[in-house]
């Protein structure tokens, strides 16, 4: 009997440890160095910056990784103390993680993704001395005196350019889009892209599909791959996605069928496998890294401002990627893309960001 009890007990311990390992997020407590206690050097206190990821987390090779890149760059340049946390699978603990960082004395905290909007609004109110950066979301009714800075992007403008690139490069005259969670934010990518394709070639045929209607749609590469295969079989030969980690499935499907794909948020050529690289036409760059870096820089210099900040084509907040892998592939259409870019910046082309604007846009093309 004794041995059985012992076995049972050790099993329980094992399970509990598993739980702790899974749920316990590591927040590095500032290493207390006894030596520095004696010397009073308040200036030596490092600025603490925390960041909580969206669903998909670090390693999505896309949106979250871009935010991470900005954080790392700032860490090196300004000698910060940084922590990045991943919410649990469904993201239910977003608010707890924000609060955890705030309570732990972090000076500036980022929430990566529009799903943080309500949580940041709430936590920012509880911690008026802490500054918050919200990526992709807009907290209502704030001004420059607020402790929240909303960092937004004109995704539709960047998507417009890669849409034009897709249409110009398509041999079949059919291009596709795969979105993650069906939401107004992702529709900005979709309609910007479709508009760009139609602008470059009014006869182009377009496909749009969404992986799903919940946050899980950003981490379902299985479905994204099936959707991509469907579009490819229907004749699509250039595909673009805005679906976080799900997009890995789309790139996989396109590569296997020797079709072109367009990455999103980060330069996805750089993280692709050698097999995939020749088939990645470009990536719609959403410089989340720059926005994170700029915000930290402003904070370090004491110039943090609340309110809204929108990054677009004009300040390179969005754009399309050129690198050593796609140089050759994209060089013939680059002049055309840059011409379109100039037109969008000048306001000669008004890029639609939702369905109604898109339909209006189509009528102007005729």
């Amino acid at each position: 009997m004794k041995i059985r009890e012992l076995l049972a007990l050790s099993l329980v311990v094992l399970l509990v440890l598993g739980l702790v390992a899974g749920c316990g997020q590591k927040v590095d407590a500032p290493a207390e160095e006894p030596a520095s206690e004696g010397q009073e050097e308040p200036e030596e206190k490092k600025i603490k910056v925390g960041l909580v990821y969206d669903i998909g987390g670090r390693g999505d090779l896309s949106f979250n990784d871009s935010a991470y890149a900005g954080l790392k760059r700032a860490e090196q340049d300004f000698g910060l103390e940084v922590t990045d946390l991943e919410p649990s699978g469904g993201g239910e603990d977003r608010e707890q993680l924000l609060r955890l960082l705030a309570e732990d004395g972090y000076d500036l905290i980022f929430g990566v993704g529009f799903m943080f909007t309500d949580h940041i609004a709430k936590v920012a109110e509880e911690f008026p001395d802490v500054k918050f950066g919200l990526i992709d979301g807009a907290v209502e009714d704030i001004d420059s005196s607020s402790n929240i800075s909303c960092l937004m992007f004109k995704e539709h403008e960047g998507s417009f350019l890669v849409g034009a690139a897709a249409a110009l490069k398509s041999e079949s005259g059919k291009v596709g889009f795969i979105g993650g969670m069906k939401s107004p934010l992702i529709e900005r990518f979709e309609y910007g892209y479709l508009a760009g394709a139609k602008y470059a070639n009014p006869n182009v045929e377009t496909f749009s599909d969404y992986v799903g209607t919940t946050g899980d749609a950003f981490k379902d590469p299985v479905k994204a791959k099936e959707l991509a295969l469907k579009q490819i079989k229907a004749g699509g030969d250039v595909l673009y996605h805005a679906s976080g980690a799900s997009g890995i499935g789309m790139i996989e499907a396109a590569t296997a069928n020797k079709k072109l794909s367009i990455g999103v948020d980060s330069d996805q050529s750089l993280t692709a496998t050698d097999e995939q690289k020749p088939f990645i036409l470009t990536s719609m760059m959403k410089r989340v890294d720059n926005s994170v870096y700029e915000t930290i820089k402003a904070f370090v210099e004491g110039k943090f401002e609340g309110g809204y900040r929108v990054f677009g084509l004009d300040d390179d907040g969005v754009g399309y990627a050129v690198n050593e892998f796609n140089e050759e592939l994209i060089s013939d259409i680059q002049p055309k893309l840059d011409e379109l870019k100039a037109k969008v910046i000048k306001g000669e082309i008004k890029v639609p960001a939702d369905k109604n604007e898109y339909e209006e846009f189509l009528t102007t093309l005729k």
Partner: protein
Amino acid sequence: MFAAELLASSLRMAVPILLTAIGAVFTERSGIVNIGLEGMMIVGSFWASVGAYFYGPMMGLLFAMMAGAFLALIHSVTTVTFRVNQVVSGVALNILAYGSSRFLSLVIFGKATTSHHVSGFNPVDIPGLSNIPFLKPLFADISPVLIMALIMVPISKYIIEKTVFGLRLRSVGENPLAADTLGIDVFTMRYAGVIISGMLAGIAGAYLTMEHTGMYVEGMTQGKGYIAMAAMIFGNWTPTGTLGASLLFGFAEALSLRAGEGSIVPYQFIKMIPYVLTLAVLTGIVKKSTPPAASGVPYDRSTG
């Protein structure tokens, strides 16, 4: 062509469900309910990425099987030896699978939610059939794991119905006391049933990682382990019935992906098809379902 495409897609979506559901048949036939199949699929998908990344696809498959089997072993120890409530143990394992994969992913790949890219087995063509243009999508560029899953159906049927092992497995699931008095080791048989289910669920996870996506992404199983249990029930605890049920679920999934935006039915409804089907199947449409009599009932020698 469209029909063949749709069927090929259904088949791809059905494979992970099928493998796991066959596993579910083994465990339930031995009398143990295994809610932890989802978790075994999760560890399978993760460990496949580890094995395949460092040692190639064969080891990926092996790692996934071992990981699934290990989790299944824990389930056997708790439910067979200690007679813990089988549902509780299964749920605990799902949480353990999720947490351990996330933790180990961070340790091994340096990121919590995805692995690095991994390569799977080379796809194969079925000789002869892959040359018929109409059937090409069904028989060309097929994953070997997909073929293996289909072959598992007759093999499992044979094992369960025709072999001594199968007879003993079924008998401990129907009436463990009677089996015990005839000298069959109830505990060993139940351990075997559960561990086989863990190995098959592990392979299902490996299929997702290596064959379908080429990368482990946290949460990529998307509840397929639970759907597999529904498929097993719909298939009336038999491998062949399970095949039909899995194909139906795969078909529903493929159909929901194909019914695009343009249709008159609202988008959200189309996405509901697989789930509505699961509910419909489990509530009314099943004519007679005959679960093993002792399924879910722990066996204790002193009380029978």
